[in-house]
């Protein structure tokens, strides 16, 4: 049986802090998860949740205080498998005295590519991330978004089997975000495994096969974006149009709002037909009826507020 692309078991990281480094601060607590081959896995969580810590542990940038991690069937400490892994650090920094083409060429050299292959790959990657005209400019003149694009290019330069992206959309404008999404989808189509961290939930909802939610250094749940949240319907939303001058009276009509050109009405699921009957009687034209479900964002906010409430309670009680 093929081993998962990423596998962690009770992975934990504590940092010493305080004047004499005697106190310990937990950044990640007993993380056990798997990312299967060929899937797009999103690591979700607010800032400081432990997403980057997890990724840095996987990439050997920091070392675990407990537990283990394996990637592509090898321990995370074995750098030989880095030849099959692409990594985009959070807020990537590169040698600013080099041009984008030089940076990519420098990284390509570590993968044993010939000069001809390097030249071809570098041009292809610059084009892919929309930097073909800026490839000869030193990185010290690049904007944050352009650096993010260089970061993405160096991550996929050597055609890796596993791509790990730490906040890949950070610093990008809407066009850039769309392009990164397309690149991730393209990689998925090519059978690559992708792990990316984000705190932007819509990105995870659009791209991920599965997500893992991390908050306060703990993994709170893993599953498809829809299964991670409670699927029970919160109510029904009816959008409708009503001719000018019609009376907005009635049990339901009185509660309708007018956010734009049309009207909007939220009702309980068991009251849907009664509401529709009232709207029909009033001569309303129904334009849409949709279920109101909690979004990933709602789930996320609930998680964060619970964490904060718990932290405050601990602080107040002094325990």
């Amino acid at each position: 049986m093929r081993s998962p692309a990423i596998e962690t078991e009770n992975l934990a990281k504590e940092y010493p802090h305080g004047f004499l480094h005697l106190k310990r601060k937990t950044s990640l607590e007993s993380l056990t998860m798997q990312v299967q081959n060929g899937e797009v896995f999103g690591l979700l969580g607010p800032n400081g949740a432990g997403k980057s810590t997890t990724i840095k542990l996987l990439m050997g940038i920091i070392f675990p205080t407990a537990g283990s991690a394996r990637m592509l069937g090898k321990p995370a400490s074995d750098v030989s498998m880095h030849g099959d892994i692409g990594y985009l650090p959070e807020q990537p920094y590169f040698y600013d005295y080099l041009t984008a083409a030089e940076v990519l060429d420098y990284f390509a050299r570590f993968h044993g590519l010939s000069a001809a292959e390097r030249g071809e790959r570098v041009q292809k990657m610059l084009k892919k991330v929309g930097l073909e005209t800026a490839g000869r400019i030193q990185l010290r003149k690049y904007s944050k978004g352009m650096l993010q694009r260089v970061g993405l290019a160096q991550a996929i330069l050597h055609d890796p089997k596993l791509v790990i992206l730490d906040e890949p959309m950070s610093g990008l404008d809407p066009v850039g975000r769309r392009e990164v999404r397309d690149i991730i989808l393209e990689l998925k189509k090519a059978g690559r495994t992708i792990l990316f961290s984000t705190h932007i939930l819509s990105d995870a909802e659009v791209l991920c096969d599965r997500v893992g939610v991390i908050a306060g250094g703990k993994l709170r749940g893993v599953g498809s974006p829809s299964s991670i949240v409670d699927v029970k319907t919160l109510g029904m939303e009816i959008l409708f149009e009503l001719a000018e001058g019609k009376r907005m009276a009635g049990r339901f009509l009185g509660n309708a709002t007018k956010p734009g050109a049309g009207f909007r009405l939220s009702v309980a699921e068991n009251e849907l037909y009664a509401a529709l009957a009232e709207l029909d009687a009033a001569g309303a034209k129904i334009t849409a009826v949709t279920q109101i479900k909690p979004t990933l964002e709602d789930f996320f906010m609930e998680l964060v507020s619970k964490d904060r409430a718990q932290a405050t309670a601990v602080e107040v009680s002094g325990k």
Partner: protein
Amino acid sequence: MSRVLTVARNAFREAVRDRVLYNLVFFALLMIVAAIVVGQISMDIETVVMISLGLSAISLIGLLIAVFTGVGLVSKEIDKRTLHAVLARPLQRWEFLLGKFAGLVLTLAVNTAAMAAGLFLALLVVKHSLVRSDSVVLVAIYFILLKLMLVVALAMLFSCFTSPLLAILFTGGIYVAGLFVSELRSLQLTNLTAQMQKFFAVISYILPNFGNYDVMGAAAHSRGIAGRLVLYNTLYTLLYCSIVLGAASVIFSRKDLK
């Protein structure tokens, strides 16, 4: 090995683009002024003055580059987080350290060679000819380069576990202490306890002996330098650098990067 060379090549390119080699302009100006001033002296000491001045300048400029750039080699990469993308390659941390070391040593070698050329040009202007015995100056320059290699290795070691400022202070301190190793060994410490005498004896052998590299007097007076000393200093430098870089690699390989 190719990965080490890739890092070394980039470290050299960084030094060139960060204008480290601009110090050569200062050295050239110093040599021009010295040649003009020394040219006015007619007491047969112009060669001695030129060689002493030239070698001192080569040593001092090299030391400044070795300490400040050497400390920055690793700490700057950690601070700016440029290391993250580099270590995501199939590259061991010790390979990265060795590559950085080789890159700076190459920079220092090019820099020292250019300054050596400048010194010989100035000597030619002052003496109007060069003789075979002037080749001793080349040996003195080679020893300066060996000394700089050792300083770079020490600077890298300290920068692996402490702040850049402390690393500069430690490297500078070890360098100054290392100049007096011979004196430390020949000291008559009779008023100290046996343990303290032993302690100082051990320290004198642990400290790098920078005094061994100082042959400025011999070079200035065209006295020959024993081939045995050349071999000894070469082997001593290689062994000491290996130990220091080995220790740096062990520390760096376990270091959590920010």
